[in-house]
């Protein structure tokens, strides 16, 4: 990788040192971000492979491609890999790691060695999980519901639980590092009200990681203990309560949805002002809505349990709170849209992903209302409607934001420009493929097709075929950026320091940045997004 850097007199983080040891023992947040990038990409392909198996099996109503057990293991692997080994670390550990120190004007994160440790913990967890997969896999679904997980499953539940338990510490340490960095490492003049919204959103994410992750860790330990030592925690025949697990699990796993979506909102809040050449509309509201989402997000977990036998009145309270958490999300969407007003809008690749994000997240967010509303949730809970809803949020939202961010900061990360035409084409293919994959699933859900079905009644076939067709288009859309981003490392045009003429501090240093980010500590004298003082970018990156 180091050979790809611009040769010449100037040292940067890529060519500062050479050799495998310089990467495995680095404490440079930018190099650790790249280590994460490689590892989460590997897991994305593992999870994607499982998705491929699922979609191929569902082409026909009969269970014919895989055995029932293999199918159950495939969707479990898809869920656990994508949630715990791709989505949760994706934007925070790659883009957050790379950018937060630069955005606040610091040389590195507050605890560089802890940052490296958190990557090693992630890798250990990943190896444990892959070991679990190759020695037989696990079939509990990513949700581990007892009493199935604790007593009836004959698969590697303990191994999978421990792998995810370990991966949690990686999250906790990353969150801790971000919180301390934002509090203690800001450059002179970088006040809280001048922080880029990317940092605000990651700050909110980090708080959820710190407060929520220990709960899932404890919960998984309880599952392991019940399975290994026959304790009666969730088993009713030994005095336990299986619904208790669901409370504990969703206490983390609902806020975890915000761990996945808030960093993506962080990216969109940077892209939209830059490609509209104007400050974000309502900075304070966008910043505070991140905090509101993090706070209220902890109080809505039981909307996953409306038909799980919880009391009528607690269901009503949780339904109300779930509607409440939708408000700050709506505020963000309105503010991004309003930012376009009287802007100077360019349709570059990152902006196309931002448009895609706004559209898909709007649909994902609004369909969440169907699940927050008690009456409608009874019918569509545990059906494909839920699958469609959370893929609109996590894939349509989180992954679109991740890809948009990768394109936006690629010149800074690699020192090379990506091919703009291919970038736009891939964004379009992802958008079309995504909608074709997941929109039919809303209809399937209201028709009543339950999730996690290996075989299904024939009347659901046409919609499933559409969905599988969309998934193949989506796969092409995901593979394309892989190809041309790698291509650009060698053949892309060298990137200027600030190709987009963006305002963040990360653009004031060279591309790629030097090891300690800035030659001298920047002094901040203005608010974020002062685009009125920035020139328009040269159209070097545009192919026309």
């Amino acid at each position, binding site marked *: 990788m180091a050979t790809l850097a611009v040769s010449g007199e100037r040292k940067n983080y890529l060519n500062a040192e050479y050799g495998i040891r310089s990467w495995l023992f680095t404490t440079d947040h930018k190099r650790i971000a790249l280590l994460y990038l490689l590892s989460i990409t590997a897991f994305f392909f593992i999870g994607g492979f499982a998705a491929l198996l699922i979609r191929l099996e569902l082409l026909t109503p009969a269970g014919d491609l895989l055995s029932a*057990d293999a199918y*159950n293991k495939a969707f479990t692997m898809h869920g656990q890999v994508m949630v715990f080994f791709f989505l949760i670390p994706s934007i925070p550990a790659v883009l957050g790691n790379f950018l937060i120190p630069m955005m606040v004007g610091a040389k590195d994160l507050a605890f560089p060695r802890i940052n490296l440790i958190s990557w090693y913990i992630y890798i250990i967890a990943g190896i444990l999980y892959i070991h679990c997969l190759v020695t037989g896999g696990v079939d509990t679904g990513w949700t581990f519901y007892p009493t*199935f997980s604790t007593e009836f499953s004959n698969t590697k539940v303990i191994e999978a639980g421990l792998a995810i338990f370990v991966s949690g510490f990686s999250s906790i340490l990353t969150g801790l590092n971000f919180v301390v960095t934002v509090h203690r490492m800001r450059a002179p003049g970088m006040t809280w009200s001048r922080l880029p919204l990317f940092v605000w959103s990651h700050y909110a994410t980090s708080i959820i990681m710190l407060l929520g992750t220990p709960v899932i860790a404890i919960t998984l330990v309880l599952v392991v203990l019940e399975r290994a030592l026959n304790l009666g925690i969730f088993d009713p025949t030994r*005095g336990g309560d299986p619904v208790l697990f669901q409370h504990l699990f969703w206490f983390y796993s609902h806020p975890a949805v915000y761990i996945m979506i808030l960093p993506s909102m962080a990216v969109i809040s940077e892209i939209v002002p830059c490609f509209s050449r104007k400050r974000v*509309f309502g900075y304070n509201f966008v910043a505070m809505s991140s905090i509101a989402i993090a706070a209220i997000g902890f109080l809505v977990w039981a909307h996953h349990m409306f038909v799980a036998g919880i009391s*009528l009145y607690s269901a009503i309270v949780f339904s109300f709170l779930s509607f*409440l958490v939708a408000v700050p999300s709506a505020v963000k969407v309105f503010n991004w849209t309003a930012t376009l007003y009287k802007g100077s809008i360019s349709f570059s690749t990152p902006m196309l992903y931002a448009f895609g994000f706004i559209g898909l997240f709007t649909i994902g967010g609004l369909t969440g*209302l169907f699940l927050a509303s008690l009456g409608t949730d009874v019918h569509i*809970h545990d059906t494909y409607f839920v699958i469609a809803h959370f893929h609109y949020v996590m894939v349509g939202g989180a992954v679109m934001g991740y890809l948009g961010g990768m394109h936006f900061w690629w010149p800074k990360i690699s020192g090379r420009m990506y091919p703009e035409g291919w970038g736009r084409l891939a964004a379009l293919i992802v958008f079309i493929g995504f909608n074709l994959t997941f929109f039919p699933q809303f209809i399937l859900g209201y028709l009543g097709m339950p999730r996690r079905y290996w075989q299904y009644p024939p009347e659901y076939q046409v919609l499933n075929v559409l969905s599988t067709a969309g998934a193949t288009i989506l796969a092409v859309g995901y593979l394309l950026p892989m190809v041309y981003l790698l291509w650009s490392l060698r053949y892309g045009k060298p990137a200027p320091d600030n190709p987009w003429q963006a305002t963040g501090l990360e653009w004031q240093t060279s591309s790629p940045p030097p090891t300690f980010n800035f030659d001298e500590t920047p002094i901040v004298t203005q608010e974020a997004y002062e685009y009125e003082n920035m020139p328009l970018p040269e159209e070097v990156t545009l192919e026309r």
Partner: protein
Amino acid sequence: MFDNFPIWPVAASSHAFWEDLLYLFLVAVCTAMTLLIFAAVAILATKYRRRHGREATPIHGSLLLEITWSVLPMGVFLVMFVGGAVLFFKMRTPPRDAAEVYVVAKQWMWKLQHTEGQREINELHVPVGRDTKLIMTSQDVIHSFYVPAFRVKMDVIPGRYTTMWFRPTRAGTYHLFCAQYCGTMHSGMIGEVIVMEPADYQAWMSGGPVAGSLAENGQALFQQLGCSTCHRFDVQGRGPNLIGIYGKPVQLEDGRTVVADEDYIRESIVNSQAKIVSGFKPIMPIFQGQISDEQLNALVAYVKSLSQAPAGQAGTPELKSPGTQPESPK
């Protein structure tokens, strides 16, 4: 529509009309909001696309707008919340005179016991127009009883009862799905709900041989297991007199008061030490693991029958004619 490409599920219960109405309301509001956002993005992005000689106008924001687009959606969300909560309340509150069917789920089948004594596996026969309440438990893992045509679903949990109810409105055969992932053959844990005209249902009920009603079987068990030595109906025994307790509040030894519903009766059998009635000693044996879920259902049905007039006899649910429903959705 084509047979293999439906876009709307059949509606066959009294809940379905209201569920569909609420759903369509949400679809309408959310489609409008989606179109609004899509149109705003498309129009603004086109109108203000980058052109030479035109610069962006810096705008900081607008408190008035922010408050408007926080409060307005909240107002719309409140309407959805209230609509959903009212429907849910109705779905979770079975009518008092509903006919009862006990459901025992296990990997991977549904076992059903009618109070009249009929038993079924993976099939449930019910008449049009009769309120039917299901009292459900699981022998192993969590399952979920889901009938899309009725728009009802409830998890079926080991170690306790959950209940649901519906009033079928249209004769036909409908899917019964397990909606909560339960292991290898989760997708094979399916069955049929067969809704019949009342006359056909009567014929079906009187068809097969039946060894006594559920409550009668429970009464036999009550003698056989020795319950009747302490729970006496003539004089005060060492256990509480069970006549008339169902649905009534019970004062517990620790000061709490609970309502004697199915779940309480069940718990008081399998885990008799959990809630001791005020004034009694914790001397009853624990029946956890000693009797099957089906036997437990029979005992519960018997104890409940003690609260129906005349006391001590299992009541037979009355059939309602379909014409008497308050609303008749199509």
